[in-house]
Every structure is written in structure tokens, then in C-alpha cells.
């Protein structure tokens, strides 16, 4: 029930029903002041109440308001990337206890249920660190440009409806279209490596998400017109054949996108495309 001053009944009340005992959770955070600077570890103790629904980002907010380490040293707020906070934008991806995931859906009651439990936070290792937990994933967006990941429509004026599509095909495309370019699949991939030099992006392995997007666009009636161009890229250095079939990507994808199905399908399509290209010479 709202207290005396709360007419809209939404005031935070630590004593509210459903919110239980508080405990201390220790965060070990790998920090870095900027590109080329050394990394260091800092620890923070954060008070969390059982049942309040706290996630890692709520704890980082508490650290920002009180940037003092567990040892009592004054420091700066941790820098991190965040957006929707409901696991649909991909921004807050980081390495939590050794595994890449979205920090927003990493709930403290699950990860650190007991007083004194520890959570380790690191930036993704396959992208250049900007500062602390914030990394630069522009390579992923660059790859989408290289793959012509769009439908080459005839402009924005009204030209009638799009193609009809069978529900099964729509469902297949929809699954790939929920990819939020978060990079979990790349962090987990043994073949995808850190490449800070943009000049080398076009020959380094594109990674699972890009192969999934290739399938998504090749399967659409209008976007599919550019399928030969995309398959050319898939046959080039860094294309689908660089996949080592470790299958980590599909295990870590937060949206459970069938990435290995896409790798298999695009692998076959690229082979056929290569043969056609060879005989058409």
C-alpha cells in the first residue's frame, strides 16, 4: 500500500511485501581507462534486497552513485553501455562470470543468491575496449553494409503491397530477424578474433550473426535479388568456410537463433553458387 505521501502507489519501499532481506554482493570489475591503457581489477560491494528484481545494471547504477571500492578507495564510476534494459537492443552485452550475455537480464537473485557471493564483469574480448565495460562493435555494422543486408526496393513511395509469404517462411525469417547485433555469438566463437584495424575487417571471419543475416535476406523475395552478391562475400576470405564448426554460437545466442542451421544452409548455397560461377566463366 502507498505511504502517506505516495498518491500514485509506486514509491520504492524497501519494507514492501515481496522484498526480502538484504545482502552484500561483491562485484569484481575489469577496468580500463581507454584504448592502449592497462587493465586493472576493482571490487565493489553492493547491497541487494532479495526479491527486488535487481540486475547487474541496477548494481552498476549503485556503484556509479557511490564509486568507492570494497577496500574503501575512492574511484570513478564504471563505464558501461546500456539501452532498453529488456534484452532487445543488445547494447549491454558484457562478459558475466566468464560468459557473454546481456547484463540487463542477468538477475542478481539467480547469480548471487547468498551474502558475500561474487560476480565478475569483463568487457567483451573480441572488440576493442572504449573504456571499462564499453566496447566498440562498429565492425558488426560494417559487415552488414558489406553483405548488402537490405531489400533493394524501388524507393519509398506507395507502389502496392509486398510479396505474399507463407507462414512457415515468415517464421523462419522472423527468427533470424530477431538478431540484435549483440555479438555474443562472436565472443564465443574460436574463429572470430579481435581485429582493431578496420582495414582488415573485410578479410577476417564475418562470424555467425552475419551468416544468419545472409540467410534472412537471401530468403526474402526482394532482398533475395542480391543473394549472388552476398554469396560472393561468403566465398571470399573470411566467409562461411572459415567457420570451424565449434557450434558455440548457437549455444550462447540469447535469442536462440538457429545459427548453425544458417551456417549449414549458407555453406551449401555458397558451394552451389561457386560452382555456377565457375561454369558460367
Amino acid at each position, binding site marked *: 500500500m502507498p505511504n502517506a505521501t505516495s498518491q500514485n502507489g509506486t514509491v520504492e519501499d524497501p519494507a514492501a511485501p515481496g522484498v526480502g532481506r538484504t545482502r552484500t554482493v561483491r562485484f569484481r570489475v575489469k577496468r580500463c*581507462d581507454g584504448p592502449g591503457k592497462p587493465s586493472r581489477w576493482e571490487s565493489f560491494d553492493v547491497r541487494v534486497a532479495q526479491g527486488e528484481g535487481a540486475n547487474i545494471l541496477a548494481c552498476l547504477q549503485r556503484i556509479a552513485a557511490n564509486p568507492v571500492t570494497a577496500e574503501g578507495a*575512492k574511484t570513478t564510476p564504471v563505464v558501461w553501455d546500456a539501452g532498453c534494459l529488456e534484452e532487445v537492443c543488445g547494447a549491454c552485452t558484457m562478459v558475466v562470470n566468464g560468459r557473454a550475455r546481456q547484463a540487463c537480464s542477468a538477475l542478481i537473485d539467480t547469480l548471487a543468491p547468498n551474502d558475500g557471493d561474487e560476480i565478475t564483469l569483463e568487457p567483451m574480448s573480441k572488440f576493442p575496449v*572504449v573504456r571499462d565495460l564499453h566496447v566498440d562493435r562498429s565492425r558488426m*555494422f560494417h559487415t552488414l553494409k558489406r553483405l548488402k543486408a537490405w*531489400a533493394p526496393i524501388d524507393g519509398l513511395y506507395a507502389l502496392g503491397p509486398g510479396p505474399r509469404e507463407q507462414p512457415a517462411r515468415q517464421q523462419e525469417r*522472423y527468427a533470424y530477424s530477431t538478431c540484435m547485433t549483440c555479438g555474443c555469438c562472436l565472443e564465443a566463437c574460436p574463429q572470430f578474433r579481435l581485429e582493431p584495424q578496420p582495414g582488415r575487417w573485410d578479410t577476417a571471419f564475418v562470424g555467425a550473426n552475419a551468416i544468419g543475416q545472409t540467410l534472412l535476406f537471401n530468403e526474402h523475395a526482394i532482398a533475395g535479388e542480391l543473394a549472388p552478391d552476398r554469396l560472393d562475400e561468403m566465398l571470399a576470405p573470411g566467409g562461411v568456410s572459415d567457420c570451424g564448426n565449434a557450434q558455440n554460437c548457437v549455444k550462447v545466442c540469447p535469442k536462440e537463433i538457429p545459427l548453425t542451421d544458417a551456417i549449414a544452409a549458407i555453406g551449401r548455397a555458397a558451394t552451389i553458387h561457386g560452382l555456377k560461377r565457375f561454369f558460367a566463366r
Partner: protein
Amino acid sequence: MSEPRRVIVVGGGLAGLAASARLAEQGLAVDLFSLVPVKRSHSVCAQGGINACNEVARQQGFSEWMHMDETLYGGDFLADQPPVYEMTHWAPKIIDLLDRMGVPFNRTHEGFRDLRLFGGSLFKRTHFAGATTGQQLLYALDEQVRRAEAGGAVTKYEHWEFLRPILAEVDGATRCVGIVAQDLRTMQVRSFRASAVVIATGGCGLIFGKSTNSVSCTGAAAARCYLAGAWYANGEMIQVHPTAIPGADKCRLMSESARGEGGRVWVPKTKGDTRHPSQIPPAERWYFLEERYPKYGNLVPRDIASREIFDVCVNMGMGIGGENMVYLDLTHKPREELDLKLKGILEIYEKFAGEDPRDVPMKIFPAMHYTMGGLWTTFTPEERAADPVMDRDSGRQRVTGMALGATNTMQTNIPGLYALGEVNFAYHGATRLGANALLSCIFDGLFAGVGIANSARDEAPDPASLAADVFDAPAKQEQDRAEALRARARAGAPDPEVNPYLIAQELGREMTDASTVVKTGERLEQALGKIRELKDRCARATLADASMWTNQNLAFTRGLSDMLRLAEVILAGGIERKESRGSHYRLDYPDRDDANFWKTTIAEYDADADAPRISYRDVIAPMVEPRARTYGKTQSAPEAVRQPETPAPAAS
């Protein structure tokens, strides 16, 4: 050929991307600024769908005109009508366009676009792609803008923050000729020249602390335009979504589509019933929305559903277990159907609440969701003959839409400065109907983009004709502002009195408590006093980070100062509007008062007082007369008490 004119677009959500694509198509060069990589913009969070008249609904009696009428009725007649006319009449064409772009709209067995029911309508007029429609539409427009970027027409400035519009005297009138922005990684502050500036920065949820909005939705960009002299309209019109999942960091949206696909809202009939919901038989459940609104049921507009849930929980104490929660129940629906149509949102609930909503009813409560008010914008009305198909229900010969290509389309009161999407005040009046937001954002970009291109080409001065100082001076002021903040930085926790994060928390609590579901003049005045105190503390705020590299602490504190100014606009508009209309519900003035308040609230910044000045403009309503907005409520509501006019008894 000469260099193309440049247009700046601030914000890369649906409105900013649609505008960028349209401007690029019109042959202009676009500089697109965004706090985040545009593909991560807040539009991804929209779930339920996008409204448009369609052939099935048309055969059932629906029309574009009715879509317009529903939108006006939903908004309690506060919206100017010609923009709503134009938007609803473009809607089917926009769906077709999105379809061509490859949006994976859900399909019927035969491969046609599937439709669902949504709030404020009795017809299925909502197109959807699973329960992540906003994400899917954003991606489609992101792809088209990436295509324009690859072709050289669009240049992206991602992780850049808009700091202020640059105004200059051109031919005796003030005009927007560029912006000052900061790279949030290198912290470089610089000016950019443009022949037109488009603000498409969305809503201001963060002012309310925990809302359904993304962390970038601070309202700071709109506030900066307001501080520069742009009018802010209907600031008091804030939508509280009835169904959100309360959390520690935000309230996550539970889409209206859950009710559109059959979800039922209920509480136990017995106060304090502690049984598990599956143990409570149907006869012992109170489906209060269905009982109170037999016609619309669970699909009444959001402000009404929020007030009813609030009434049940706060006034009657009937919330689940005495808490401020009600059930949103989908457990009667087959799992396969739920997964096909609602998987995205059910997974969000499962991940964040830890229970499977296919098995257990969800627990939800209202949360701040959408900003109907925003930067005031204008347009050129265009009277034309009513369309025999689209306007068949209008009973009119003539209708009034907007003139395509007019250079004032969605222009603020400052020439050259435009506002599109959620950041403007157009379209939604006093409440937005579900699945109209995606439509208004895309329509704004596509429709207004034509006029903005004309303005940049034909009306804007030659950028080379403006003196360098016009751009250098405001950039220097912003540089100094950042330096002044940095000079106050010291490591460690600041005193709570001047801790920016704690000031922001206090702002959020105060605004949520004083100015959401129910309001009173007294409480709003009290909140205004609190904001003045917070402004004073914010002016002395102490940073914990003096770095000149990716200093989020600095950006946060600077934004907080601007959010406080916008909070004053929201409160002042609420205090002055002494009536109840749509989302603005005043306990001390529970009725709508058309005689005095069928008007647009305008807030102008008074720099000397550092406070808003409130005035009013008439609503432009050439087509539909206001009528009582009851949605057929059956009992003890203010509307139901009023009896319809009965004819005088016949003389005997």
C-alpha cells in the same frame, strides 16, 4: 552540379530513420546523430504492432476515417485533426512499404498479413511481427538507411550527443542553422552546419525514474530546444501503460497485444486471498475491466485501464496479496498460439519475473510509458474532397488533411527546426492508442521529410553565407559548460546533497508520485517546489570523474540539469490544466472542461525566471466535434453519472 544541401537528423529511431531515408531519396545529404548505434534505438522496445485500415477490416465496416476518429476519441479530442487525418489515410500505404522492405509480418495460412485486436478499437486493424514489431520495423528502416549510407547520402555520428540548436538572424528572422554536439567517446565538442535540423529524439521517460523507456529517453534534447526558445506543447500529457513488470532498474513493458490476443485482467474477489491463482476458480475472480466496460473489455485505452487498476489496488485495496499488482492472465490460451504471436514478450516476462506466463498469470502494475506532449509543430492544412472509400463513414463532402511538401510541415516555432515522432506533440492528443506510435513515427519521417527537403533546398540560406562566429560561439559555450562540470569532479562518492545520481532518483520518485495516474493541484505545486530544490542542488552537483575520455558521469549530470527544466514544464502544464482529459486526471477537477481547456498547452521558456510561461492555442478541429469519452462504462464513473439528455415529457 552543386553540393547537395545538408540536413541534420538528431535521433535514429523510427522517426529519425524514416526521415533520413526520405531526405536521402530527395537528394539531400544527411548527417544522422544518435546517442547509440541507431539499430539500438528505443523503437526496438515497441512490441504490439502498427495500426492501419486493411481490406478485412474494411469489409467488416472499418475505414481510414474511423481510424482517424478512434485516434481523436482516444486522445480526448486534444490533437489537431488534419495531421491525424493524413496519418491514418497514409497508414495502409506505409504497411505496404514496410512489407516491401522485408518486415516479417505474421501471416495467415494463405500468406496474407495477419491482424490482431488492439486497445480503443472494435476492429482488427493491427499488423504485427511476433511481439517485437518495433524491433522489426526499426531494423527494416535501419537497413534502408544503411543502404543510403553505403551510397554516400547519409553520414552517421553514433555515440554523439546533441547539445543545442544553433540559431542565427537570417533576413531579419531567427532561424536554426545547425547544432552543437559532443562525441561521447573522445568528448570533442563541435558545431555542425545544416540547412535544416530535425529533432527525432523520442520521449522523456527517465524524468519519471523507472519507466518502460530506454536509458537514452531522458528528454534532454527536447529540453535543449525548449531552452533555446522552441515551444513545448501539452507537456502534462504523459501516458501510463497499464501493464508493466515492476523492476529495480526499470518497469518492463508487457504489451497491450497480450490483451489483444485474449489476455484477461483480474484480481481475487476476496480481499487478501492468498491462494495460488490457479487454485482460484473463475467464479471467485473479479474481471473488473470486462465488468465495467462490457463493450471494450480488457481493451479500453491505456489511461482508463491504468486508472481502473489503480482504483482496484490503491483505493479499494484489492490488489494481489494487498500489493499494487493485478493478474494479466493468458493461461487459458494454447501454448502454440501464444508462442506464434507473443513469444518475445512472454520470454521477457519469464526472464525477468522467473515464471512462465503460459502456466501462471502475470503480475503487473501501471508504469510511465509514452510522452504525448512534446515540441510544438505546425503544418499547412489542405482542404479536399472526401474520398468515397476511405471517408465513407464521415458523412462529409470536404475533409482537411496536410499539404505534402509544405515547408512548415512539423516545423517548430523556430524556422529550420523540425520535430518528428514521439518528441513532437502532434497526433495523440491526451492519450495515445496502442499501435499508433510506430505509425506516427514512420509517417512523420516519410511525410514531413518531403517538406523538410523543400525547405532545405528553397528556403534555407546558403550555409557559406553565415559567419563562422555564429557556429563557434555556441560551441565555445558548450565547451565551457562541460569544463565547468569537470572542474567540480573528484573521485569517490559525492555528498548526497550534490550527488547527480541521487538527485535523479529523487526527481523520478517525485514525478512518478505527483504526476502520473492521478494528480491534484496541491501535489503538483508541492512537486514544483521540489524540482526547484533539485535544480539548485543540480547546479552544484559534484562529479566523480574528471576524465576527458568517455565520461558518462559528465553527460549524465549535464542531461539531468535539462531534464529538471522539462519536469517543470510537465508540472506547470498539469497545474494550469484544471480539468481531466485523457491521461491527465485531476482528482480536484474530475470532468473534462471543453469551454476552458479544449486547448493546446504551450510552454515557453522564460530565461529570466528560469521557469516556463504557460499559454494556450486553440485545437485545430475542422472535422470532428468533441463528444463524451466513455467507452461505454457501466457503473459509478463520473461519465456514467451524467444522464443523456432525455426529451421533455409530452404534454398530456
